[in-house]
């Protein structure tokens, strides 16, 4: 049996991988309602059901990256100050942090979540700068884009660890080594996870195609936006904990060609300035993720 076939077979038993916290489903469904129907206390009550989630939300709510400059010390103040949309982003971010297996692997959870959270923030900021229609969706897509890696860590930890080690020693992108040695990448796995979690089709497209934007059958602009943001993070020291030794011209990336059709302002986008702005993000992301991990 080939590695790929064996892996797909094991993926069918994905039940061993935890799903997102129980409270998140009702919370997200509640926040999908029109704004005028929402009550702050209801949101506070829902988040408070999970004490760990509540504590982490509060930590994150105090970060300048979420627009907060005065400290808040209770959930109600955080929800009032930040708004429901941001609280939704924060709740989702904190929820996914619990998904990695506890067993020690060669994937440092802090590094992994720094990349995911960094990518989420970059996606949202990038979306705003180029007038992409839904920055909130971009954030979510950035946060979840590598969920296939989490699945690999649950299902094929040894094989994945070997692939990561090889990518690290060769300084090449992880998905290239996964394709070579596992027979499939965290994109294919992410797509399976996304479908099993009943994520929306646009998110499934991102999970499945962020390294192969041309393969996306739907929501190609969102896939392209995440693909470019992910690459920018990896080139700016917010990757998987190792340096990819390569040279990238963003205007020659397949994601750029796709996204520029939807967002013409990308044609004159100041990539240099956006890259320099990331410096501030990185510092804050490092601080935030390490604080969240300490508070677990």
């Amino acid at each position, binding site marked *: 049996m080939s590695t790929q076939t064996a892996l797909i077979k094991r993926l069918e038993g994905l039940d061993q991988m935890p799903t997102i916290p129980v409270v998140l489903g009702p919370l997200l469904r509640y926040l999908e309602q029109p704004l005028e129907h929402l009550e702050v206390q209801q949101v506070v009550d829902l988040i408070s059901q999970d*004490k*760990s989630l509540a*504590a982490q939300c*509060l*930590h994150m709510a*105090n*970060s*300048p990256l979420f627009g*907060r*400059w*005065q*400290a*808040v*010390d*209770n959930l109600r103040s955080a929800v009032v100050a930040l708004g429901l949309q941001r609280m939704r982003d924060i709740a989702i971010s904190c929820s996914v942090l619990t998904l990695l297996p506890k067993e020690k692997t060669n994937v440092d959870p802090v590094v992994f979540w720094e990349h995911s959270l960094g990518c989420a923030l970059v996606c949202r900021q990038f979306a705003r700068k180029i007038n992409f229609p839904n920055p909130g969706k971009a954030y979510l897509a950035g946060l979840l884009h590598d969920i296939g890696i989490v699945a690999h860590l649950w299902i094929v930890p040894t094989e994945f660890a070997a692939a990561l080690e090889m990518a690290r020693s060769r300084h090449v992108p992880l998905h290239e080594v996964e394709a070579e040695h596992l027979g499939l990448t965290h994109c294919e796995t992410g797509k399976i996870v996304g479908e099993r979690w009943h994520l929306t089709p646009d998110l499934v497209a991102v999970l499945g195609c962020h390294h192969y934007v041309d393969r996306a059958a739907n929501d190609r602009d969102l896939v392209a936006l995440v693909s470019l943001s992910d690459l*920018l993070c990896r*080139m*700016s*020291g917010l990757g998987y904990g190792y*340096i*990819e*030794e*390569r*040279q*990238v*011209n*963003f*205007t020659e990336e397949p994601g750029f060609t796709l996204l520029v059709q939807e967002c013409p302002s990308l044609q004159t986008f*100041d*990539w*240099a*300035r956006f*890259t*320099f*702005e*990331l*410096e*501030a993000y990185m*510092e*804050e992301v490092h*601080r935030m993720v390490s*604080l969240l991990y300490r*508070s677990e």
Partner: protein
Amino acid sequence: MSSPAPFRTSDATAGPPNPHLVQIRDLVYRVAGIFQPDNKLRLLEDRCGRRMQALAVTSLREYYECLTIKPIRQAEMVALLNEITIGETCFFRNQPQLDALRNIVLPRIIEARAKLPLRHLRVWSAGCSTGEEPYTLSMMFLEETAAKLKGWTFEVMATDLNERSVAHAKHGIYGDYSTRNLTPYYRQKYFIARAEGLQVNAEVKAHVNFNRVNLLDDARVAFMKGVDLVLCCNVLIYFDVMSKRRVIQHFYNNLLAHGYLFLGHSESLYGVSEDFRLVHLPSATAYVKAEKRQVAPQVKT
């Protein structure tokens, strides 16, 4: 679980950035092409504070006016840029840039150069100040002579407008501040201890040629041909747009087809030139030549 203690970041206690400081940051980027990210705003505020003290100005709003509408605005911008870039000169100043140069750019140049008859690397440190940058390059390439540059020769052309800086560079003696990033390995291998500090040894010096050159002197600059790599860090920020374009045009004409241009940390050519394309390297950026025909630099009228 008890309720969590309130969490504060250093920024949370400081409050949001002063909007006039953000205006100054954006103005500096627009005029000079050097960007101060949010995590460096406090440093920028400190630099502005020094200038405000010198001008007896009490608010950032008033200082912003000094930089924009008052008659002293041009001179003041230069003074602020001096504050921003102060103390940036030292050996191995920008390690990610040097790593990218060594691991990615150098192999690409070597590959492209291999098609040419002469195995010779030619690098130009434009605006080399007191020489730390060209000597760093010389040491780095010497380290590669047993590996990537085996069988190759190399030279670093180092130019600066300031005669005293060039004289200092040729002398090659440096104090603690300039040498703070040097590892014991480099200190021992490439420096001689003197009473005044560390002196670059003859081997390193042999590969570096210092000259006093004004980058706007078309006749002088036109002779710096056949270059593989130009480093021009924190120099263009002092030029107006037209002058920047002239200098960039010279770089374009003097670089070989595979040539690279490196600027200073957080420095950009956005809105200044279409002659080069931005490329991303690990934790660094650089510029490569865009495909276009060679043209004469625009002469100032």
